[in-house]
Every structure is written in C-alpha cells, then in structure tokens.
C-alpha cells in the first residue's frame, strides 16, 4: 500500500512532465498542460494525505537494486517515517497551491504550458529527494531540483539578468554539491554503501563500528555533506544566488526558493542527524546562526519586495540549520513546515501585488486583469533587463516598495493574508504558527548553549534572538510600506486591483495554514523523534524512547509539536546524567526565558518598525545618514557578490585562458616542433628507404608544413577511388604475403 502510494505520488508529476517533453519533441503542445499538471499535483496531494494515515511508529524502507557490481550494490528506495510523510504533504500542498496560483499569475505567457511542465518536473524531483532512503537517491533528487530551479529562474531567459541568475544559481549550488559528493565518497569508502537505514546502512554501521578515533574523520565527512546544504539552502557563504533567483516568476520563488527546494538542505541535515558529531554540529549551528543574523540585516535595507523576502528566507533557513546544529531536531523540522506555508504565502502575496501593478503596465486600465496579458510576463521587466542586480541598484518598478503604499484598501484579501503571514514570521504569540516553531528553536538553542557549558556558545542564542527581532522589524517595514500610508505613486496606485480568484484562494488557504492549525499535521508528532546521535559526547536532546513518550503526541493535540519539543528537551537531561544538575536548572527556565525574550524582541521589532514606517516619529533617512558605513555594508550585502565576481570568477576565467594559451603554444608547439624536426631527419633518409609508406608520410609532412604557411594543395576528389583500391589491394597483398610465409 505505502509503496504504491509513494509510487503514485512520484509518477503523477513525472507523467505530466513526460507528456510535455514527448509532445515538445514533435514541436507540439498539449493544449491544457496547466490542468494536466495541476491535476497530477492534486492526486499526489490526496495520496500524501492517505499516506499520512499509513505512517506507523516503525519507519519503513523499500529498496530495489539500482547498480549492482561484483562487490557492492547501490540501491534505490523509499524511506517512510513521520518526517517523510509531513514533508510529502508540505511539498504537494504548496506545489498544488502554486499550480493554481500560477494559472492566474502566468496567464497569457507565451511559454505558459512549459511553465507547468517545469513545475511538474520540479515536484517530481523534490518528492523523489524526500522519499529517498539513501544518499545517492537524495543526491539525484538534489541535482534534479537544481536543474528545475535553473530552468525556472531562467524562465524569462530573454532578460539578461534572468540568464545570469539561473547560471549563478546552478553553479553556486554545484560548488556545495561537490563538497557533498566528496562527503559521500568518504562515507562510501568507509562503509561500502550509501544506504542510510537498516542493518547494513550507514547509520547502523557508524554507530557500531566507529570509535572516538574516527571522530575527526566523521566530522569532516559530516561538514562536507553539510556543504551541499549550504549551497542548496543558501547559507553563508554560498547564499548569493538566492536573491538573484528572484528573477524567476514569483510562483517559482514561492515554491522552489522559499518553501521546498531551499528547505531541502535543512531536510538533508536533519536526515544526517545520526552521524553528526560535536564538531560538525557546532559548524552547522554557527553557519546557521551567522546566516540568520547577516541575512536579516541585509533585508532591512532592501526596497525590492521580493528581495526582502529572499533575504528573509535565507535568514529563516539559517534558523532551521541553527536548530539542527543545536540538536533541536524536531524544532528545526517544525519550523521548516510552518515556514513553508507562511513564506509561500508571503511570496504569493507579493506576486499578487506585482500582478496588480503589472496589469497596469500592460494595459493602462485595471478591469482586464486576467484574460489578456498578451504581451506576457516575459517582457514585463524588459525595461530594466540590464539592471545591475548585483548591486541591487535598479529594481523593477512593480517590485519597488517605494512605489507602493496604501494598498490595503485596494487589495484587501492580499493584505489580510500577507499580514497573517507577517505576524506568523515575526513570532507574534499564540495564534500564529511561526511563534511556536521559532520559540521551539530559541528554547532549544538556549538549552543547548547551557549544556555546551561554555559561555561563548550563548552567542548562538543572541544571534538567533537578534535575528528574530530584526525579522519582525523588516517584515513590518514591508507591510507598512506596501499596504499602509498614502500611495507613493498615485498613477500606479489607481490602476492596482485585487487579483483573480485563482490567486486569492491559494492565499486564503495558506493563511489558514499559517495559524497553529498546521500543528495538526504533526498529530503523530510522537513518532517524530530525533534519531540517536551516538557520536556526540553529550548527546543532548537525544533519544525519546517511544514507549515512555509515545503517548504524548498521539492524542490529537493542537499544540502537539510543542509537547514533542518539550519532551525532546526533557529527554535531553534524562539521558545525560553528567550535566544533570545544569540541565535541571537550565531546561525548565530555558523554555520560559526563550519565550519571554522572543515575545519581547518581536514586540520591539514591530514597534520600531511602526515608529519608522507608519507613525514616522523616527526617520529612516536620518538613521541611514548617521550610520552610513553600516548602512553601506548592508546595502552592498557585505560585498559578497563583488568578491565573487571580481575575484573568484575572474580568476577562474583567467586560469582557463591561461591553460588554453599554454595548450595552444607550448604543448602544441612542441608537437609541431617535433613534427618539423622529424620531417627533416626522415627526409634525409628518404632516399635510403625504398618504402612507399615512409615516403608518402614524409611528403605529406612536407606538404602540411607548407600548408601551414599558406600553400594548400587540394587532393583531387577523383583520385580517392584510386587511393582506396590501392589500400585494398595492399591489404590483400599483405595477407597473401603473410600466408605464403
């Protein structure tokens, strides 16, 4: 049952793509690719819900041999546990909603069918990644989602900025992927398998075979695999591709670059949980923490509505990484889920705003918003196709928040839903899902910082807390600038309008999902338990034995996850006797302290934002002037792009040219030189040998050398047959001669 359900989930989107691909080869189109792809996704969604009911406490694996060699076998297979089931729902749900949204948003695009085909291919790849039970399968899905990301970022490839962005995304993530592949090679060489689960899987073998002497090695392997996640989840320092990826159509940004693909890095890191060591956990935590904070600071100063959200995504992904690095497995994955919904909502909402402005661009009147975008989104940004996106200096006018304002009356549904998402991401207490997941992370990080028993790791908590405050600040900045105040651009404002139903319905559904109702997804949260981490010296939030804690989440609980998280923490000091005293003092308070502090910083952020951007008691301009250097640093995104473009890319291209030149002059020069010298020597002996072949060669060499000098002698076409017969006769003669010997 589970196998056929999972197969169906995978095959539906794949088939939808295959239809497009096969017809495309014949230069034809399926006229309703949009319905086909959407229907495929909805079936997958239904199957995912059915699958959720199939999940049992014991994870299942189903494998087949993929590559069988004499001594090793690489298998492919499904792994189904609660996390898989939840991820499947997140992916299929967001994907379905994005499909529906796109029917409105992409309407009239000349490559409309292709868009849906790509979405289908993406959904397949992402789902394959999620259900794979082994590293090779994950890697395959991993690269395929990268391909889809490439194709979709460059969907409007006529724009140079889009063409640059898709290449950058693919190459940047590939740098991380190579790290991941090296990590896989290390694990494979050690364990002779890439399967993760089961008795012969990496986790079991690592737990039983490795000793403390292997920890350095295992830490390196863990960090290398995490490199893949750094690339895919846009963590520092490989984060620069994600903001540029906003060149893609906005539904793509919502699905791929907010909700699912970029979260795959978090998912992978969570899957690798059992082989994380003390060191690799710390690396992950710090990368996540720094990313969360730095990206948030960059987001403060952006004016492009999509770029704000992009940096916000980077920052939130950093949060999740931090959680996993700090051992808060459940919290990290929980935040992944809640973030998927509210961030998808934010992106789709921004898409709705862009769409409202865009229709104005195309037509100059606002009543024909749906059926006649004849000149297509493909050209919507053409006026600034050369935008210096690297410096963020030029922003498409329909994405520039400085052109917005007061939209709440024009677009009430978009406004309300985006406000809900904003409240959620800002961590406004109790009635929004983001609060619960963020709180869980903060508590986890604080708890872990206490356990690490080293003062400087508190900095992780401080980074997370500051990021939370900054997030609340810039998100409300976005809301105030977009929906409140007076319209800044009256002409554009007049033309704006609420989006069609195909777009607002997905917004409403996502808004509901940004409430704690999302926790019900985790109703079997008792099954979601952090796998054991045998390689941690102090297995902090280690293992919750199902028999003792199993009951907690089984009951249908609105806040089931919070209980699971709490259980996770309790278990932490249950199993960890040496720090028991610290733990008992630390953990109970950790949750309370974290919750109080997180509410405080969120409130502070929102309040400041209100002062700056709504009441205007404080002036952003004067603050900017006062702190010019810091502002510049944020504005230039810490100069990462400048460094990469100016140093790394330039060096690579320079090196390539150098190699090519070396090849052409030195290596080939030697060859030609040897040729000439040989010709001369041979020429001296020509008379001595009555050998047709040598003679012929020498003549040829001579000709060629002259040919280089410009004297080309053409072989007469008519002579070829003669040549051939000579060759043939020669062969026959040779055979006869040899026979005679």
């Amino acid at each position, binding site marked *: 049952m589970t196998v056929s359900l999972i197969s169906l989930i995978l095959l539906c989107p794949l088939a939808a793509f295959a239809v497009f691909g096969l017809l*495309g*080869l014949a*230069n034809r189109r399926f006229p309703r690719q949009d319905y086909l792809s959407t229907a495929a996704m909805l079936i997958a969604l239904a199957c995912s819900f059915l699958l959720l009911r199939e999940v049992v406490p014991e994870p299942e694996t189903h494998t087949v*041999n*993929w*590559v*069988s*060699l*004499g*001594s*090793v076998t690489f298998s492919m297979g499904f792994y189904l546990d609660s996390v898989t089931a939840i991820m499947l729902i997140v992916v299929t749900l967001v994907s379905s909603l994005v499909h529906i949204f796109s029917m409105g948003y992409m309407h009239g695009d000349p490559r409309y069918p292709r868009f849906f085909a790509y979405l289908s291919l993406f959904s397949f790849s992402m789902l394959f990644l999620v259900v794979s039970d082994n590293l*090779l399968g994950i890697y*395959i899905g991993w*690269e*395929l989602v990268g*391909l889809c990301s490439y194709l979709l970022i*460059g969907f409007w*490839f*006529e724009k*140079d900025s889009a*063409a*640059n962005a*898709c*290449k950058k995304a*693919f*190459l940047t993530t*590939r740098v991380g992927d*190579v790290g991941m*592949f*090296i990590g896989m*090679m290390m694990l*494979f*060489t050690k364990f002779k398998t890439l399967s993760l689960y089961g008795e012969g899987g990496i986790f079991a073998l690592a737990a039983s075979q490795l000793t403390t002497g292997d920890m350095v090695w295992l830490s390196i392997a863990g960090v290398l695999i995490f490199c893949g996640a750094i690339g895919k989840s846009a963590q520092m320092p490989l984060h620069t591709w994600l903001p540029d990826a906003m060149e893609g159509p906005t539904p793509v940004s919502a699905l791929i670059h907010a909700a699912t693909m970029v979260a795959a890095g978090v998912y992978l890191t969570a899957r690798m949980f059992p082989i994380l060591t003390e060191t690799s956990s710390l690396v992950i935590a710090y990368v996540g923490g720094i990313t969360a904070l730095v990206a948030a600071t960059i987001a403060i100063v952006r004016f492009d509505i999509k770029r704000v959200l992009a940096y916000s995504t980077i920052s939130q992904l950093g949060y999740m990484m931090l959680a996993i690095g700090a051992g808060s497995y459940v919290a990290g994955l929980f935040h992944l889920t809640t973030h998927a919904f509210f961030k998808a909502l934010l992106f789709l909402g921004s898409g709705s705003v862009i769409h409202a402005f865009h229709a104005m661009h195309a037509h100059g009147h606002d009543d024909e918003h749906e059926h006649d975008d004849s000149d297509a989104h493909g050209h919507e940004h053409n006026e600034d*196709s050369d935008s210096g996106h690297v410096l963020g200096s030029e922003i498409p006018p329909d994405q520039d928040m400085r052109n917005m304002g007061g939209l709440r009356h024009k677009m009430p549904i978009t406004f309300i839903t985006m406000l809900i998402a904003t409240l959620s991401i800002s961590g406004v207490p109790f009635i929004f899902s983001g609060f619960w997941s963020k709180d869980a992370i903060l508590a986890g990080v604080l708890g872990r910082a206490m356990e690490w028993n080293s003062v400087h790791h508190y900095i992780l908590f401080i980074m997370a807390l500051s990021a939370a405050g900054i997030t609340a600040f810039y998100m409300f900045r976005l809301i105030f600038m977009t929906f409140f105040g007076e319209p800044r651009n009256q002409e554009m404002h007049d033309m704006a309008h609420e989006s069609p139903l195909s777009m607002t319905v997905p917004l409403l559904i996502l808004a509901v999902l940004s409430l704690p109702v999302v926790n019900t997804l985790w109703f079997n949260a008792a099954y979601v338990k952090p796998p054991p981490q045998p390689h941690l010296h102090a297995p902090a939030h280690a293992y919750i034995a199902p028999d003792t804690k199993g009951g907690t989440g089984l009951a249908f609980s609105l806040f089931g996850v919070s209980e699971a998280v709490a259980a996770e923490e309790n278990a932490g000091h249950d199993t960890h006797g040496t720090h028991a005293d610290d733990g008992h003092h630390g953990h109970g308070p950790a949750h309370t302290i974290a919750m109080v502090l997180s509410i405080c910083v969120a409130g502070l952020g929102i309040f400041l934002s209100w002062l700056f951007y709504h009441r205007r008691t404080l002036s952003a301009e004067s603050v900017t002037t006062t702190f010019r250097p810091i502002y510049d640093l944020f504005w230039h995104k810490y100069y990462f792009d400048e460094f990469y473009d100016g140093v790394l890319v330039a060096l*690579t*291209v320079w090196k*390539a040219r150098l*190699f*090519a030149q070396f*090849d052409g002059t030195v*290596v*080939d020069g030697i*060859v030609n030189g040897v*040729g000439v010298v040989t010709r001369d020597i041979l020429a001296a002996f020509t008379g001595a040998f009555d050998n047709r072949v040598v003679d012929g*060669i020498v003549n*040829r060499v001579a000709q*060629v050398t002259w040919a280089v000098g410009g004297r*080309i002698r053409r*072989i007469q*076409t008519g002579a*070829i*047959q003669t*040549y*051939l*017969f000579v*060759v043939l006769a020669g062969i026959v003669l040779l*055979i006869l001669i*040899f*026979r005679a*010997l």
Partner: protein
Amino acid sequence: MLLSLMIFIPLLGMIAVLLLPRESEELIKRVTLIPLALAVYLFISYDRSTAGTQYVVNAPWIDAFNIQYHIGIDGLSVTLLLLTALLGPICVIASWRNIEKGIKAYMALFLLLETGMLGFFAALDLFLFYVFFELTLLPMYFLIGIWGGPRREYAAIKFFLYTLFGSVLMLVAMIAVYLNSGDPGARTFDIPTLIALASTEGHALNNLNFQIWVFLGFFIGFAVKVPIFPFHTWLPDAHVEAPTAISVILAGILLKMGTYGLVRVNMAMFPLGLDHFTNGIGFWGNSLALLGFINIVYGSFCALAQTDFKKLVAYSSIGHMGFVILGLAARNDTGITGAILQMFNHGVISAMLFLLVGVLYDRAHHREINGFGGLGTRMPVYTGITTLAFMASLGLPGLSGFVGEALSLLGAYDEFKWLTILSTIGIVVGAAYFLWTLQRVFLGNLNPKYEDLPEINGREILTLVPLAILTILLGVWPNLAIDMFRESVTNLVNVLQAI
C-alpha cells in the same frame, strides 16, 4: 561466424559501393543497418552470466608467426561493439545531406572505417588487433583530409602521424611480447594465452621490469588515441576540421579504442606493470591517476576558454576521458565499471553534442559561441535537446553521464584520495562551461541576424532521438549496461588483486 559477418559486412558494403553506380544510395544507407541488427541480436543473446569470451572464431591465419584469426567478445567488447554499430547508421543519416562531393568515396571510406572499429573491438589476437587498429587510421585520414574544414590537411596529417607515432611504439612492444612469449616455434600473439603466460610464475613475461617497458609502449600508443595529456593536441584540430559525422565517430568510437586497449592489453596482460603505475606509492604509483586528474582539470579549463563551439566540445571530451583513466587507475570494480560506463556514455553523449554542433553550423555557417544569442526563442526543440545533452555531459544525475562519472570517482577515492578530491574541480568547471555556452548561444535576446534560422528538422531529430533515449534510459537504469560486463569486470579485478 556471426561476429565475422558483423565485422566484414561493412567491407563488403564498401566494395559494393565502389562498384555500384551512384544511384545505389539507398543500399549504402542500409549496409550500416546490418551490423546494427546483428548488434541488437548480440545484445539479446549475449550470455551475461559469464566472464568468458563468446562467439569465438579461431582459425589459423599466418602460420609462420603463429598468427591467428581469433575473434570473440567479452562484456567490454560487446558494449563497445554495440556503441559502434549504433553510431554507424546515425552517422550515415547525419552525413546524408551534408556531404556534397564524392558521396560514394565518402561512404566507402566510412564503411572501411566501421570494419576497422568493429574488428578492433573483437580481435583476440594481438597481431589482428594491431591490424584493425591501423585499419581505422587510413580512412579517418582521408575523411578528415578531404571532407574537412579549411585546415583539414594539417589536421588530418597531424592525426595520422600522431597516431602512427604511438602505434609504432605499440608495435615494438608487441614484438617484444611476441619474442618473449616462448621458444621459437611456440611464440604466440594470442591474447588469452599471453594473459595466462603473463601471470605464470617464472615465465619471461611475468617480470616486473619487462612489463613496465611493454606497458609503457602500449600505453603511449593508446594514450595518443584517448587522448591523454600531453598527447592530446591533435584532437581539437581534428574535431574542428572533421565533418560532423566524422567528429561523431572520432569522439564516440576512436577515443574509446584507446581506453579499450588500455583495459584489454595494459591492464589484463601486464598486471605487474599496471601495479607499478597505480599502486599509490610514490610518484610512479600515482602516475596513471595523476594523468586522469590532469585530463579532467586541464581539459575542463581549456574548454572553459574556448569560443569555438566544436573546440569546446572537443576539450570537454578530453576532460571526460580523464574520468575513464581515473576509474581504471582505481583497479577496483566500482572504478572500472564507472570507467566502462563512462566510455559508453561518453560515446553517446559526445555523439549528441557533435551532431548538435553540426545542426547549428549547417544553418549559421559558423561556430563562434559569442556570435549567437537568444536562439532559445527561435529554436525551442533544438534548445531542449541541446540542454538535455549538456546536462547529460555535465553529469546531471538521472542522465547517463552521472553514473559513469560518479562510479569512477567513488572507485578512485578508495585508492587516490587527494587526486580524486582535486578532480571534482572538473565537475564544477564542466558545469560552468556548458552553462556559459548555453547562456551565450540560447539565452538572452535573439540575435537579429538569426531571426529566420530554421528549427531542427526531422532527419536531424532522427539522429538525436535514439541517443537521447539511451542517455535517459542508462541514467535511470544503469544495470542495463552493467549487466553486460559485470562478470568481465569481476574477472579482471580478481586477476588484478591476485598480484
């Protein structure tokens, strides 16, 4: 008999082509289909459960030197025979409207070439092996030298002399092996016999010093063909000048003759010599892997700098053949399987790439990458197929290129950690040059010069679709190919590990 038929039918076809009038075009087309049909039969009937050679024919040929007409196929041979037989008809179709002058002679030479290639992969007698090896040289020389581009004569002679230089060393090594194979009268060129003798304790062939020298002789001969740095500079010239179909054969089959030779002769026959160059101890122990690494990284960087589309693909071949060398150097079944898969897959993928370059060249009459732009809007189907081929070539999982590359690297990491890690640079650079090319040719605004460029036509699609299907099929189901040679590889690895 079946095998002989397969090898010599193109030769008969050649004679027929030469004798028949020009109107017999249809016949020419069909001649290449016969080896393909036989290859399909081989694919079905080949016994995958054994490492032994099958379809053996062993008849005396030149008694004076104990030379035999000994042919037969094992897993590696059958894989490459299939590739050769597949590319044959595809090249004929690809040549059909492109070759304007002397089509009869062209086809005759092409068929002679095919006989040479098929025979080479089936030969089990060292002398026969050498004859077939040389037999491919001559038609190739004329095919490039007559139907090639502006610098065709230079390219052709460079190719010819370079390969000849290598094969002379090979010939010397071959004679040395022959002379040491036994007492006068009992000497032999028979490959299975020589393999057995070379691992017999106390036999003259089972001598480290001797094996090192003959290893080197054969190695240089094959290295030119692969090509391995620094013997590679003939390749970009030959590719750039050769007509499309000949580039396909060159990259698809001729390069594989080099790596095939390395496996068949250097690895199987001289395990002591191989051990000397791949045991990971000191400079010489790492030398083969080092050459693989250089090929990968050097070839990739050179490709990145190219602005001629065809030259770029040619350098990418050098890079990709590096993975074969690296995988072979590993000497374990993961690495060798990866290398063989990479041979086959590179044959398919590079064939696609050269066909695609040809399609564009036929329309625009130049290959300057920077001279295009925005073709994605004008030729969507062509763009789609090119993207597929590029992705396969840069090793995207799900397509065939990935499996060979990944297995080669996984195998090699076992033996050569640092060289393998450094080789992964090639993966990033490989993606860089293909994506950059994709951007410069297909993305951005349409170059107004090419507003009327016609979309890829049915004949061209016909040449590409079988290859595209194989690329996807073997990417999803690599066992389909691995089944053919698993036992042979296991057998080889057992021999190597017995050292």
